[in-house]
């Protein structure tokens, strides 16, 4: 509990990114070590170890049931692992925090199914996601500062929804909702973005724009993308991790991975 409060109290927007106490001097921003999750005896994650470097864009692929979504759930606090450690930077133990605290610490998540607040308009959706003090009383008396208004306008521009800013989010098309959700992610100014199937159901052009956006984010943010669309993965990936039955099968460039005999076996079911 103390930790939660501390993170709220020390919000520092100077570098435009949340999580002031994040310590990444040793390179990795996210450490998963020997993480195991089982549901009724089924091991969704099996001694999974994974490291994401600061500023990296990492793609994670794997057949259905490989544990990709469960891994995201563990990182964001939705699921508690049976064993293992999960650290954000050197010092923040994610297993000690709940979902809102993890979000405020600087980990943003985009869900597989577009999930925006349908009854609120586009602008309000972004306003709620905005990185700021999210405790009860400050929220009750919050007023939008000109700088905050500007940053919302900027994100509206980035995701191409400026014209729809007053529209109810529920009335947007599927692709627009996906973009709004990416916009909400940007408003949170996370240090690490977890993106679950960002291009599912998108048209070809939308997919291309999403690839561009994700590429432009890497560097300042670390991005982890879970995706089925191999074409898309090839277009953005520098490093690919293949998950299979809850642990890492192999890691490397797209070409290395695609020619790996075990990967071919797993994907073709041979």
């Amino acid at each position, binding site marked *: 509990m103390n930790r939660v409060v501390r993170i709220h109290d020390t919000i520092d927007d100077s570098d435009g990114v949340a999580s002031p106490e994040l310590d990444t001097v040793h390179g990795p921003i996210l450490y998963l070590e020997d993480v195991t999750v089982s549901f009724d005896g089924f091991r969704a994650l099996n001694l999974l170890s994974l490291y994401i470097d600061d500023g990296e864009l990492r793609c994670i692929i794997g057949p259905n049931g490989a544990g990709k979504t469960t891994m995201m759930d563990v990182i964001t606090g939705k699921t508690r692992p049976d064993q293992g450690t999960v650290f954000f930077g050197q010092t923040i133990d994610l297993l000690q925090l709940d979902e809102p605290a993890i979000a405020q610490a600087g980990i943003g*998540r985009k869900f597989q199914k577009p999930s925006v607040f*349908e009854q609120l308009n586009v602008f309000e959706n972004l306003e*709620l996601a905005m990185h700021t003090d999210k*405790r*009860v009383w400050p*929220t009750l008396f919050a007023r939008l500062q000109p700088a905050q208004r500007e940053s919302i306008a900027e994100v509206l521009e980035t995701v191409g929804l400026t014209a729809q800013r007053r529209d109810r989010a529920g009335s947007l098309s599927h692709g627009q909702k996906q973009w709004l959700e990416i916009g909400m992610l940007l408003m949170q100014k996370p240090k690490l973005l977890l993106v679950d199937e960002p291009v599912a159901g998108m048209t070809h052009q939308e997919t291309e724009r999403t690839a561009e956006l994700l590429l432009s984010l890497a560097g300042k943010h670390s991005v982890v993308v879970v995706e089925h669309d191999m074409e898309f993965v090839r277009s953005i990936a520098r490093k690919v991790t293949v998950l299979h039955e809850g642990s890492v099968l192999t890691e490397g460039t797209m070409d290395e991975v695609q020619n790996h005999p075990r990967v071919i076996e797993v994907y073709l079911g041979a």
Partner: protein
Amino acid sequence: MDLANLVAQDRAGKVFLTVLTIAAVSISSLNLLVPESSALHLSTFTVTVAGKYLSYALLALAVDLVWGYCGILSLGHGAFFALGGYAMGMHMMRQIGERGVYGNALLPDFMVFLNWKELPWYWLGFDHFCFALLMVVLVPGALACLFGWLAFRSRVTGVYLSIITQALTYALMLAFFRNEMGFGGNNGLTDFKDILGCNLQKDGTRVAIFLLTALSLGVGYVASRFVVASKMGRVVTAIRDAESRTRFIGYQVEHFKLWIFVFSAVMAGIAGALYVPQVGIINPSEFSPLNSLELVIWVAVGGRGTLYGAVLGAVLVNYAKTVFTGVLPEVWLFALGGLFVSVTLFMPDGLVGLAQKWFRVWGLNLKQRSNA
């Protein structure tokens, strides 16, 4: 300045506050200023009934906040109302003094009847009006805080939460029925004589309490509007529509739910405290689960998530109840049930939603005509 801005932006709210002011002023002057012989004279009884409706309206406002905006369907809000009512009733009970049937200056009648020798500790302090007022706010607030903390922390939602709120009010009803509890058991608290030295039977006192109720409703409305128009209002709406998503963008959902639940419970308690001096009695049947269900129906009929819809629903349904129970008492519960079913099926947004739809169609027609 902020509040003025708030009211200025809320067109329906301006209409509501104007209507409320006109109604309050005209009802009280028709009673006090018009001579009894005149046909225009309003009886004190009517004023009191109107005051009762307004205290119900404040209660409906409280339910709309948690249900309409935050999606917490509380079927136990009657409990907070009754607790506020009991706190006020206890004060008025102490004001009776030695004018009771047994003429005991130290103990209320029902305690003398039970052969109690001294006042239980939890009655201490209720001699003072300010202490009673504090309890009107604190007791429902503390109960809501404890109950809400336990329920929301364990992430109890939806129908399960509704059922345990219902259980809460039922348990309180059973407890207050017991004579040993020291709240008058079955009969509750009644036979009040005066409040702050003013005779409760006098027209002036009655009208004053009525006006105070109208004022509280107005203040309650503005306060609720402030909450729902703030960023918190949007967070709470977000929680209603996608709770876990709200959590993942960094809001402690439980804290927000708890805050709005406690705020609403306090409002319900104040409504109860205004209700009791007007009806002159508070007994355990106020805790009955049926009461809590009824007030959800008021909000549904008026239209939830609008605030003024809740007020409208409370006044209309209670007026219907007064008329019905006078003419055909045995039919009332069937009528109420039928009303709820038909509102759910045919007017999911209540009367306010229906009116908005009509206005839209009407506005469209006008536009087309002007185009032609």
